């Protein structure tokens, strides 16, 4: 570890309250729409169109348009869901957990990380509904008084997960919005055109920065952070229970909740990196997102990655330690079965690639960081796919063993979901502040204070 970086400033020198405010708000209010942005937007829009087409086709024909079969009745849709909801975790973690632990360096990262969370969770929320055989009845999972007088089945982890997703979506949305209110007020006050004034004015709810308001605001931020952390941990534990409640070899394992939380952090940090580096580059945020921030992110990613690797190890170990026939067979299948290539891809991305992060020179090289982060995202998707399919395709009775082959629509839904996510994110960077101005102002103020 380099002490230089640890002592390096969290903010480039010579920043003023006005300076940070203007820089961030001008990105939205003054900066013209770039050609690069338009290109990215067009691509995302195309992919989203593909997703929309897929959804229409799905509702017309049924989930049979995917490669699902017996015994592999879950595959891409669930893998996508787990992948996306996991990506959401880092946002909440950065803004909430680091807030509770008084990590000043979080300030410039919170906003876009939270945004990432909101959009990732929204996208992931699509899949559990779409993968139903009869999606239009998804609301049957909610307890409500009906003429049939029937209720949800509370013992199912899918139901727990339904509650988890709903809670997580609403909470992360509120968390994101509430923390943005003061910035919206700034945009309202700095907007040149009437239209924007009204737009931001409505969203700002008439925030005017009165001292007592700030007090309540701060109290709430603290409380939300304190609530968001257990929530996010519980959510990913629920996701894990979707599998470990099943009795399949490779699913029925008590290690899953912590394992999934770590995996979520891992992919979340990777996505934070994948989004952060370009933002920093295009919007000249170098003064705010300093090398130290990036270095910290990289270290966090490495730490989470190592925990994930540890759980791979433990899974394999427990299989052979317990000597349960089915667990051992499943583990051997992962190593050398029909889907071994998936397993080894996962290992390559999630175990081998991240070891490079031990070196400071790699962490300082943004291209390398970007590459590794992308690898991690790919690796984590494959891990979910392996987890689901390699447990299902060879279960208990040899007679019912079978393969899974994805169809065009499987791929289309994955690509489409990525498109939708980036579509939302691109809109976000055009209309909302990508860095929390109020947090930055606070940071500037604190750094200007003579340290005792």
């Amino acid at each position, binding site marked *: 570890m380099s002490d230089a970086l640890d002592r390096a400033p969290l903010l480039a020198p010579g920043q003023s309250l006005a300076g940070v405010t203007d820089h961030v708000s001008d990105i939205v209010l003054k900066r013209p729409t770039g050609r690069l942005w338009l290109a990215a937007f067009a691509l995302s829009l195309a992919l989203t169109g593909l997703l929309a087409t897929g959804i229409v086709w799905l509702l017309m024909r049924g989930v049979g348009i995917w490669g699902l079969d017996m015994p592999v009745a879950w595959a891409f849709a669930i893998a996508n869901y787990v992948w996306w909801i996991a990506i959401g975790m880092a946002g909440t973690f950065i803004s909430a957990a680091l807030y509770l632990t008084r990590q000043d360096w979080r300030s410039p990262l919170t906003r876009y990380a939270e945004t990432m969370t909101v959009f990732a969770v929204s996208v992931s929320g699509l899949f559990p509904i779409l993968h139903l055989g009869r999606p239009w009845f998804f609301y049957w999972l909610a307890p409500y008084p009906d003429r049939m007088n029937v209720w949800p089945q509370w013992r199912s982890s899918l139901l*727990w997960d339904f509650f*988890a997703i709903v*809670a997580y979506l609403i909470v992360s949305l509120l968390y994101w919005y509430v923390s943005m209110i*003061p910035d919206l007020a700034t945009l309202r006050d700095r907007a040149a055109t009437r239209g924007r004034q009204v737009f931001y004015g409505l969203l700002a709810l*008439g925030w005017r920065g009165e001292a*007592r308001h700030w007090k*309540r605001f701060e109290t709430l931020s603290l*409380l939300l952070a304190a609530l968001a952390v257990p929530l996010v941990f519980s959510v990913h534990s*629920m996701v894990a229970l979707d599998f470990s409640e099943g009795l399949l070899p490779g699913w029925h394992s008590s290690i899953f909740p912590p394992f999934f939380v770590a995996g979520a952090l891992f992919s979340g940090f990777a996505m934070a990196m994948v989004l952060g580096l370009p933002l920093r580059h295009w919007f000249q945020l170098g003064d705010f997102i300093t090398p130290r921030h990036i270095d910290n992110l990289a270290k966090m990613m490495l730490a989470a990655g190592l925990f994930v690797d540890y759980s791979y190890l433990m899974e394999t170990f427990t299989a052979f330690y317990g000597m349960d026939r089915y667990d051992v067979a499943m583990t051997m299948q992962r190593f050398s079965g029909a889907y071994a290539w998936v397993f080894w891809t996962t290992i390559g991305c999630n175990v081998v690639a991240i070891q490079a992060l031990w070196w400071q020179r790699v962490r300082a090289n943004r291209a390398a960081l970007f590459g590794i982060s992308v690898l991690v995202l790919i690796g984590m998707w494959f891990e979910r796919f392996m987890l689901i399919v390699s447990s299902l395709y060879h279960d208990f009775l040899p007679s019912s063993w079978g393969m899974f082959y994805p169809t065009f629509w499987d791929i289309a839904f994955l690509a489409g979901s990525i498109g939708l996510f980036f579509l939302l994110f691109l809109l976000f960077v055009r209309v909302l502040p990508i860095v929390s101005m109020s947090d930055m*102002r606070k940071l500037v103020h604190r750094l200007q204070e003579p340290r005792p």
Partner: protein
Amino acid sequence: MNGVNVYGCMARFDSAESLRGAALQLRHAGYVRLEAYSPFAVEGLAEALGPTRSRLPLLVLLGGLFGGIGTLALQYYSAVIDYPIDVGGRPAASWPAFIPAALEMTILCAVLAGVVGMLLGNGLPQLYHPVFNVARFAQASRDGFFLVIRADDPHYNDARQALLDLAPLSVDEVPA
């Protein structure tokens, strides 16, 4: 100058510290209807304006309790009292299985209570407010620190002078 169609008198200061200092002085001078505006949360500013106590934590606690206990009660009623069904040979009241949903609802309701509480406590949304009538006030969300003595303050008559004594950057009257 009488406070007929006047909201109050507004002075701008150059920094958070001077704003807080000014607020404290005016308090000692006996002003009670004070408002301070800052581009970020300034430590101790609210306290400087007068005694504050927040009911927010209590509200959040109640919200959480409602969500958690309510969900548990609903689960028990639906699975044990209203329509008990044999599922996988499990007992009707499968408490361990009831916890996850209850946990999620605890947090959700707590958060909702908190957010609603904050907005109500701050009287938001309040799209129109007299302070916006002052053009300079736009800076309040950038780097402006403002102090307002409301017209309904008993000592309002010499408010303007009191503010000027604090060497502000500017002083404006806020029309109602």
